[in-house]
């Protein structure tokens, strides 16, 4: 059913900390690994060892350079996967009902046996969260590891999405963003979590924590700094003579 639920009981999603992400791509690898071996069709690669390799990924890490008005540029690593939007445009455009948003936890999923691979949902997504698998001909997207988070066969600490479990810098957090008392909601409130492309009206559930302010570039000096100041401001001796002579020429 492609009609979106009015409300969902929970809003499960991710909070991604752009301050701590080190851009190691471990989440990309663990996501590809888990989702190739588990729920749905495997994530295929085309020409993986050839001249033009490409493949299906549900999570990709971009890196951006941000240049403030003053001070040095900052490098920010930016993991991006499905944001499990409340007003998910990918769901309503689906002609077959393969795409749906779950009422119980808000996860956006694709029923692969109903998908005709028309690609319209990928067009409707502003975030590039959906990719048509070239081997299977069906749409693939982040499932929020729905086959891990409720899986009682796994140890409790593993019942989080693979990307969250694997992140070595603690940059990815998983929880219920519909509950204002949850750890993730408090993190968002505390750090000013942001929506991506809010003007698209998708109301994403996943939030991004902006990088914390960096140390100021000017006005801060070490206690030892006075001892490191240049001793001679003007060149003297032979260099001074050379400087003056060259100036005159």
């Amino acid at each position, binding site marked *: *059913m*492609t*009609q979106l639920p009015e409300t969902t009981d929970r809003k499960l999603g991710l909070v991604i900390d752009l301050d701590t992400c080190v851009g190691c791509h471990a989440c*990309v690898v663990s996501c590809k690994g888990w989702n190739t071996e588990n729920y749905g069709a495997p994530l295929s690669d085309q020409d993986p060892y050839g001249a*033009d*390799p*490409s*493949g*299906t*990924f549900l999570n*990709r*890490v*971009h*890196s*951006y*350079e*941000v*240049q403030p*008005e003053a001070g040095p540029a*900052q490098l*920010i690593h*930016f993991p991006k996967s499905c944001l499990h939007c409340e007003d998910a*445009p990918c769901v*309503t*455009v*689906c*002609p*077959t*009902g393969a795409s749906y948003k779950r009422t119980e936890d808000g996860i956006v999923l694709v029923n692969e046996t*109903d*998908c*005709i*691979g*028309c*690609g*319209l949902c*990928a*067009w*409707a997504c*502003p*975030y*590039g969260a959906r*990719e*048509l*698998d*070239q081997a*299977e*001909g*069906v*749409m693939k997207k982040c499932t929020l590891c729905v086959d891990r988070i409720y899986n009682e066969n796994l140890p409790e600490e593993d019942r989080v999405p693979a990307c969250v479990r694997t992140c070595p810098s603690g940059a990815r957090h998983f929880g219920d963003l519909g509950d204002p008392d949850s750890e993730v909601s408090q993190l968002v409130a505390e750090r000013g979590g*942001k*929506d*991506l*492309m*809010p*003007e*698209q009206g998708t109301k994403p559930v996943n939030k*991004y924590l*902006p*990088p914390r302010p960096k140390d100021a570039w000017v006005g801060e000096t070490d206690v030892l700094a006075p001892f490191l100041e240049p001793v001679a401001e003007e060149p003297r001796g032979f260099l001074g003579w050379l400087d003056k002579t060259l100036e005159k020429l």
Partner: protein
Amino acid sequence: MHPAPSIIAFTTFSGLGLGLLFWLGVDPTPPTGWIGFAFFAIAFALAVGGLAASTFHLGRPERAAKAFTQWRTSWLSREAWAATATLLVMGLHGFLLVFFGKAILPLGWLGAILALTTVYTTSMIYAQLRTVPRWHHWSTSLLFLALALAGGALLSGRITVALILILAAGGVQSWWWRTGDTRLAASGSDMASATGLGNIGKVTAFEPPHTGSNYLLREMVHVVGRKHAAKLRLAALGLMMVVPIVLLLLPFGHFLALLAVVSHVAGVLVARWLFFAEAEHVVGLYYGKR
């Protein structure tokens, strides 16, 4: 957006066929017998051929019938229904005209309304997408309807009507191009809003996720064809509007009329190629492209 030949053929030919079905439907003295057969055969070949072409780009064409189920929210599903209804009603209308010489005019009117509805649903598949600002506007529907009506009038041999509508469609097309050029900037989406990092400073893409290409870039970030966009726009307008008008103003002959049709269709194909090739998807912003 990637200008897939199957989708260009689908929208162009189904639009023409449905346009012709509209004019056959509203005709107070519709053609019967062999002449009727010829007109309906052309209309159905174009409409059905175009719709069939649309299934070529599916990853799983064998499941295409499932596309009828979600008409409550999906324009693609609504299009499937509207197209089927049009073909059934106009098929019956044509059958009665060709084999019994019997014209039930209200049946034709119903078919005409359905034909235009189908063109409208096709246009809404694109116009509904907020992610492609160039398309996300009511004028996209106007453009599709104007081209279908003009092409249909030309195919049905209505010289005067075709002259007026081809001129009008060319005007709509030029205006749509001009206003479309500003729509991405006006959408408010840029790299700052895409990353949420704009308040720190100017955002530039430093490194893409992978060194190779991917589905998103191939499908939605087509930048190659935009280089010659201005020349192609002129070529499209010349072929779809100027040449047919000149040919129609000459003394009527079937060969000249055929040339006018071929030129018009070629022009619409070029314009439809640009419709996709020039359209910027906001996902390109994540890659520092547009």
